């Protein structure tokens, strides 16, 4: 028995409720622990480096006005982007999952697609479209409007980050909606609740864990993203860390990175408490698809909302890329004759696939332990993996250079180390989907298999694994598409001579040849978009 929405369902994580019929097998704990330790290992070089910094100097750096202001900036940004992502992602999820929105299937896929647009490309597109002398300004100039609000700064950064990360909230919320029993709100309405009242008092508690899981991914992504704040000219941890690394200020950068990780820890703890409070919100898993709520007069505004999101998130970046491609002049200068080769795209697909498979495999023990045997230890393993996700790619990359050159020169600048870096960065995405799949499988099934003579490993392999496979696959697809667009760690760790789509885009864009960046960027978006279909198609694999 399996419900829908194995999907991006980082959702079900706090649903809990599985009876811990026995203690976890020691081998499983050891395996999960080893994976968590491996994922955390890149932090060690940071600690070592910071330990070498004089304490008083370190303190003066950390308490300097510049540092405290980037701390305030980063926190404000995380708060605003998370809130805005919820404000966009949750309504979209409800509209596509529970209402009679026109063209529902189209919108279901389309509003998830912005996730495949790398935020540095999104930000560049927004600056080109809405910046001073951008497309919008050019359009408005003839009708006498010669000043538009600036796209730079806090507002623009929030806007761009929200538009390209809200799909995390959308996907997880949608998954919880599909997994939750849709007949409950109907029951509430028969008991006299209004539609909104039923949503607030019944549906919302059901999907809160899903929202929280998506919001966590948004918050941590915001904290670790470098490209957007850099382009939108807003000072955050990552921008300063990047500038410092480029200025050979590795001590200060390491110090800031640890501070960033501390902030991550606080966010994780906060989210845990939030999750714990909601753990009573148990979603029954015999999900029946309830009737759709008729939108009535709200059909028009709902449609307009979905279209507006799509225009901003997909049409603007793709349109600007197309403009760079075809327009001679403006910022779309053609490159220095550096021909784009398809081999570059194949390289990207190859490493991303490898990272996705490895992450999916590594996610299973941790997710299974966290879902089946709730304990402090299983929670710690689970949470520890999120630290890697919040670590800026450049910090991770330099840590692994230290690790590779010092302890593993045979692995240095090889694909295995690069793929390991990807797994460290994106493992939580695979763990989330896998964990919720495990939660949705009735543990009595595995128990039944064991009474029929299977060992615990055999029961897992023959019963549980096939049942959670769609969730694992969805997690792998999510890792695939984020790996496709990962830039900083790729630049530092790729094998010499092994170029990918993002390193190519970086190369031409760094020199201002935006036109030459258009083709690889479009290829990147299309290929990643295909993996989004894998994620969403899992919804239809109901038994």
């Amino acid at each position, binding site marked *: 028995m399996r419900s829908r929405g194995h999907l991006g369902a980082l959702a079900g994580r706090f649903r809990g409720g599985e009876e811990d019929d026995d203690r976890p097998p020691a081998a499983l704990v050891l395996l999960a622990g080893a994976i968590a330790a491996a994922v955390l290992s890149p932090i060690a070089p940071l600690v070592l480096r910071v330990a070498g910094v004089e304490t008083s100097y370190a303190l003066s750096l950390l308490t300097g006005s*510049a540092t405290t202001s980037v701390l305030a900036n980063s926190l404000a940004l995380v708060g605003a982007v998370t809130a805005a992502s919820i404000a966009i992602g949750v309504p979209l999820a409800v509209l596509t999952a529970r209402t009679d929105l026109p063209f529902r299937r189209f919108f279901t896929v389309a509003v998830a697609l912005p996730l495949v647009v790398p935020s540095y490309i999104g930000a560049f597109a927004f*600056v080109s479209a809405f910046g*001073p*002398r951008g497309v919008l300004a050019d359009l408005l100039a003839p009708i006498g409007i010669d000043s538009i609000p600036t796209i*730079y700064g806090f507002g623009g950064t929030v806007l761009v980050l929200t538009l390209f990360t809200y799909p995390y909230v959308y996907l997880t919320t949608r998954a919880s909606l599909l997994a939750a029993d849709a007949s409950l709100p109907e029951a509430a309405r028969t008991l006299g609740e209004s539609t909104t009242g039923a949503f607030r008092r019944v549906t919302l508690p059901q999907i809160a864990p899903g929202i929280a899981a998506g919001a966590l991914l948004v918050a941590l992504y915001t904290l670790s993203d470098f490209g957007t704040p*850099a*382009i939108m*000219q807003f*000072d955050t941890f990552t*921008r300063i860390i990047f*500038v*410092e*690394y*480029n*200025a*050979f*200020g*590795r001590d200060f950068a390491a110090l800031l990175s640890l501070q960033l990780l501390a902030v991550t820890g606080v966010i994780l703890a906060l989210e845990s408490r939030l999750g714990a409070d909601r753990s009573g919100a148990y979603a029954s898993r015999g999900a029946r698809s309830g009737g759709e709520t008729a939108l009535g007069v709200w059909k028009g505004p709902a449609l307009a909302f979905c279209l507006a999101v799509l225009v901003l998130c997909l049409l603007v970046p793709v349109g600007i890329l197309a403009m760079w491609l075809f327009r*001679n*002049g*403006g*910022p779309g*200068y*053609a*490159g*220095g*004759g*550096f021909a784009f080769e398809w081999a570059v795209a194949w390289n990207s697909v190859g490493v991303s696939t490898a990272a996705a498979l490895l992450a999916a495999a590594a996610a299973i023990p941790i997710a299974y332990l966290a879902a089946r045997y709730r304990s402090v230890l299983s929670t710690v393993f689970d949470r520890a993996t999120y630290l890697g996700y919040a670590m800026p790619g*450049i910090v991770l*990359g*330099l840590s692994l*250079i*230290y690790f590779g*050159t*010092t302890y593993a*020169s045979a692995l*240095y*600048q090889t694909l295995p180390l690069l793929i390991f870096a990807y797994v460290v960065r994106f493992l939580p995405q695979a763990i989330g989907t896998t964990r919720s799949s495990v939660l949705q499988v009735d543990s009595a099934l595995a128990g039944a298999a064991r009474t029929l003579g299977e060992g615990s490993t055999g029961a897992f392999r023959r019963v549980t694994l096939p049942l959670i496979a769609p969730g694992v696959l969805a997690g792998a697809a999510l890792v695939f598409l984020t790996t496709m667009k990962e830039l900083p760690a790729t*630049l*530092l760790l*790729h094998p*010499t*001579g092994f*170029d990918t789509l993002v*390193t190519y885009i970086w*190369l*031409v864009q*760094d*020199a*201002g*040849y935006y036109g*030459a960046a258009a083709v690889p960027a479009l290829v990147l978006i299309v290929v990643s978009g295909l993996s989004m279909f894998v994620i969403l198609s899992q919804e239809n694999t109901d038994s």
Partner: protein
Amino acid sequence: MTRADASERSDRPRRRTRRAVLAAGTAGLVGLAGCSALSGGGGGNGTTTGAGTTAGTETGTATETGTATGTDTAGNATDETTQGENAAAGEALPIEEYRGSGPLVQQRPSLSGTSIQDLPPLSGELTIYLGGGEGGLYTNLISLLERTYPDFEPKTRLAPTSQLASTIIQETSAGSSPADVFWSVDAGSLGVVAERNATVGLPQRVVESVPQQLHPREDWVGVAGRARSVPYNTDQLDRSQIPQDVLEFTNASVLQGNMGWAPSYGAFQAFVTAMRLLTSRGRTKRWLNGMQEQGVQTFPDEFLVSNAVADGEIAAGFANHYYALRVQAARPNAPIDLAFTQGGPGALINVSGAEIIKGTQRQQLATNFIYHLLTVEAQEFFATRAFGYPMIPGVPPVGGLPTIDELQPPQLDLAQLSNLQPTLRLMREVGVL
């Protein structure tokens, strides 16, 4: 190749040099006369040295064919001896393969210096860490060399220059670096690596053609230069309104609310570092504050500064010189021109350069490769495709740019540009970063 052939070859450069010194001299004068770099200069060069491009045919001697100058027309004129030699060393490519195209490159004077044909062939595997790389242009040059030498197997690793410098330092301190050569678009990064004793010195014969200032020690050598400049919008400003001294920009009322800069951009930070080292921290702070009071606008990089100037969004900006040239190459009618300040930090010339990484097993090949970057062909490539400043006297810059001497760059060891920390602290303190 016989001994006689070798001496024949070694004779050629000398002959060429003599003639080209004259040509370069005239070009220099023209450059001086037309200080406004972009508009008049290019034409000026063309008329003065109009015969330059066809120098090979004019002299018409067999010895000229196959050399850098001669190859202009060598496609059909190459004599058989040369062809035979080329087959042994790989097919030598005519200089047009290295030369760019477009309005800024239409008229090139005759060139002189060591030709690729004067050097032993490149052969074997070579790992090159390429910091920056100007949008793939450097990779293009490397593949031209690959085409010339079938046995040459370069492996390039591309990343931001400072990240590669950090990587090399980490690698050499942990044991050895996979890199044989570090080729970086920023002298500061070269300097940082050299300071950590992670390099092997270059032989005198390789670096001697490059001005001392552009290879302060024998650790590294500049291969192409870029000058700090002030791109300005010719519809909004007259050249005479732009101060001659960069420190005076804070007082120019015509620039109030009308300037742009890119403080997070490496080249700008190098310029502020130079100001700090050449004047003082306090003076630099006053300058930064003064520019803020001028209402200077911030851009993500200097290409976008130059683009904004061409668009009229700002009247002038601070940027490396080649960005304005690239804007002009793509939009010949854009109202943008370049002004250069005289002396001091505003006249800083930073270089793209190369060095050999300590522990390499291929020192000879690495040296020969760097020597190749200083040949007439490679220098013409940097001049006409990347719009950079050539490092050897026999190849002039494009578009009537003033020569390096005319710019009066400040006396500053470029390796010191890696001293970025105090600069960043200062910039953060005044709130421009």
